[in-house]
């Protein structure tokens, strides 16, 4: 009896797999020679996968920095004539320690945390946080469509605008340590980084042609600064009001002729219009309010030469340049919040201005532009060297008061980068600034020794 039970048990044990696979091991119809150990679904994709977790990467970006102006080089750039917030003001605005300012010595510029994944068959998503040593900021949080037909693609969320060439790149993709001056001074510390929607179309042509439009909330300081509702002063309304978004609209086109495998060229043009540009400056007795519109246009180009048979990027050449022009049409109206001259008793007959008085009503335009040109060369496997020349304020007009023309500012940079692998790089950069500040030339020298590593699974970069 015991034997019987045991036998039955054994039989059950051995017959179970047979029952599960009544026809024996499946032969792969695609593998007549039984080459494969296990059948794979045809056309399966082989990746290391992430089991539904987003692909994650962390980029650590630190440096040693020094300059010959007691660490003030970044402040000098921020005060460049024609670009500073309250340019031409008799009294200096509160130009504090701006974003991107480094201390002399060791700095952690930023740590980027990037997450990307496919949401569902219809959307991809990408989120990036940046920790700059003090706080965590959301750099991008964007959802991109996957399944739109006819070469269309839409994205929405917070993202870096596709205008120009460098604007949409994260700092770890730059060939130099810093953002081009023209991008920083015309748009802002983060470039044109906005919340909104984008629609692009890739034309079904033999040559690459991509056009796109963006509707953005409009918060970028240089082009679409927004202050919103301000409370009246003693019953006098200020001209700054709430304007509903989107307030910034951009469009761009990129064209790349097919130049074979060794050469690649892409040229682009972009235009943008901000339906609201607001600014305010608090003087000792009055608010100076600017309310208007702004627009910009720009052209950009990048050329890459990748020789065949090249070892580790030796002999590769990359040329890149961008030009941007910005115009702001501004209505100015000041409102006194204290009697003027400052500190005077309002009842004093010498008080020229009373609280709530309106002054300096004028309309004017501000025009600024700038460009940069840079070249990179693959010196040896894993090494490249580059130079960059930048000029801003070739056109440099401000309109407040009786209007003023300002001098241009320049910066010269040279860079040497060593990339032990695609996940790490060591960079030495020298920059010389020649900046116009209040009509004077301020010069400085900067040295950056940057170390950057990328951990984890980072998505591929586009052209």
């Amino acid at each position, binding site marked *: 009896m015991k034997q019987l039970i045991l036998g039955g048990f054994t039989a059950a044990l051995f017959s179970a797999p047979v029952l599960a696979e009544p026809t024996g091991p499946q032969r792969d119809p695609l*593998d007549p020679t039984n080459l494969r150990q296990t059948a794979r*679904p045809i056309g399966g994709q*082989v990746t290391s996968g992430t089991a539904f977790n987003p692909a994650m990467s962390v980029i650590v970006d630190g440096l040693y920095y020094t300059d010959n102006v007691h660490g003030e080089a970044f402040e000098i750039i921020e005060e460049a004539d024609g670009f500073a917030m309250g340019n031409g003001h008799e009294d200096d605005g509160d130009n504090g320690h701006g974003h991107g300012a480094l201390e002399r010595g060791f700095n952690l510029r930023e740590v980027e945390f990037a997450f990307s994944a496919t949401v569902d068959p219809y959307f991809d998503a990408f989120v990036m946080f940046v920790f700059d040593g003090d706080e965590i900021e959301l750099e991008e949080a964007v959802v991109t469509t996957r399944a739109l037909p006819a070469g269309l693609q839409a994205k929405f969320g917070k993202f870096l605008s596709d205008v120009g060439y460098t604007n949409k790149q994260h700092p770890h993709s730059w060939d130099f340590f810093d953002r081009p001056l023209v991008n920083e001074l015309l748009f802002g510390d983060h470039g044109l980084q906005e919340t909104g929607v984008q629609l692009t179309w890739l034309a*079904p042509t033999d040559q690459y042609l991509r056009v796109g439009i963006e509707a953005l909330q409009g918060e970028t300081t240089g082009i679409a600064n927004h202050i919103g509702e301000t409370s009246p002063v003693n019953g006098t309304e200020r001209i700054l009001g709430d304007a509903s978004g989107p307030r910034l609209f951009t469009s761009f086109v990129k064209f790349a002729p097919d130049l074979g495998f060794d050469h690649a060229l892409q040229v682009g043009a972009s235009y943008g219009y901000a339906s609201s540009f607001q600014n305010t400056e608090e003087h000792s007795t009055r608010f100076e309010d600017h309310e208007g519109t702004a627009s910009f246009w720009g052209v950009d180009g990048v050329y890459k030469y*990748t020789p065949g048979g090249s070892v580790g990027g030796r002999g590769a050449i990359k040329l890149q340049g961008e030009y941007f022009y910005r115009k702001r049409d501004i209505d100015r109206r000041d409102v006194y919040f204290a009697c003027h001259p400052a500190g005077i008793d309002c009842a004093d007959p010498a008080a020229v201005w009373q609280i709530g008085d309106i002054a300096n009503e004028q309309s004017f335009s501000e025009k600024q532009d700038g460009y940069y040109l840079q070249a990179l060369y693959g010196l040896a496997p894993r090494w490249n060297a580059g130079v960059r020349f930048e000029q801003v304020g070739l056109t440099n007009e401000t309109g407040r008061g009786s209007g003023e023309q300002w001098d241009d500012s320049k910066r010269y940079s040279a860079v040497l980068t060593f990339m032990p692998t695609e996940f790490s790089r060591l960079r030495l950069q020298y920059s010389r600034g020649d900046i116009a500040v209040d009509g004077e030339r301020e010069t400085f020298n900067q040295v950056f020794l940057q170390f950057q590593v990328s951990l984890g699974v980072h998505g*591929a*970069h586009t052209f």
Partner: protein
Amino acid sequence: MRRLLLMACLLLAAPWAQAALQVAATTPNMGMLARSVGGEHVNVVVLAPGDRDVHHLEARPSMMVALRRADLLVAVGAELEVGWLPAAIQGAANPRLLPARPGYFEAAGTVPLLDAGTPADRALGDVHPEGNPHIYLDPLRMATAAEALAERLAELDAANAAAYRARAQAFAERMAQETAAWQARVEGAPGALLYHKDADYLMDRLGVPVLGYVEPLPGIPPTARHIRQLVRDLEGREGLAFHMLYEPARGPERVARELGWQAFRMQNNVPVDGTMEDYVALIESWVTRLEGR
């Protein structure tokens, strides 16, 4: 009148009816595979030529143009093209080619991979935990991939399914026949030193031992110490040193000189417009060196 209209319609429709499938292939070998299986029913565009390292390409506008119009993408896969292909597909805005759609084909997804299951630790270099992706130098794996590709083409273009299957079978038969001859010729060959793990599949198929790698770790250029170590380890052995045309010659040549071997600069891809004959010639070039005649 009605007949005339019908004729006109047919004439207009004719080019569409016969329109070949547009195939984008990441490398010339994959282009060769698509051409061999698809024949006149496919129109193949190769994204990058074989004279550069497919690990380190970038997503270029010309690739996006090709992918924008493609009905099928034929990639090596297993993350070989991970540094640029996802960006190129994304930039092409062509939902037909997204992974898991019929328009996305990875050859490495159809065959067993060597070195699968290595730790995902970049201290070990540029490792591929899912397996070595360089399957394209193994004629028999390519034969399997050809048959899988035929099924895929049949799915996309049912009208020519029989032709695809027949061509894939012809390719597979040719590869089986050539491989048997190649194996016989290199029997007893002393083995070879490779630069990267990019000819492992060929060596494995031919039964020729890989004596070592010039790279100390995948993707890491050779150090003087590693070269000395290789020379010490291989002292007194017979062999050959190989490197691809985009890999630096200095390391392999140094080892070869010290050991009295020969170093060869090799190709791992057919020409951009290559055919099955070019692929046979490519493998032949390796076999000729290995048999040392």
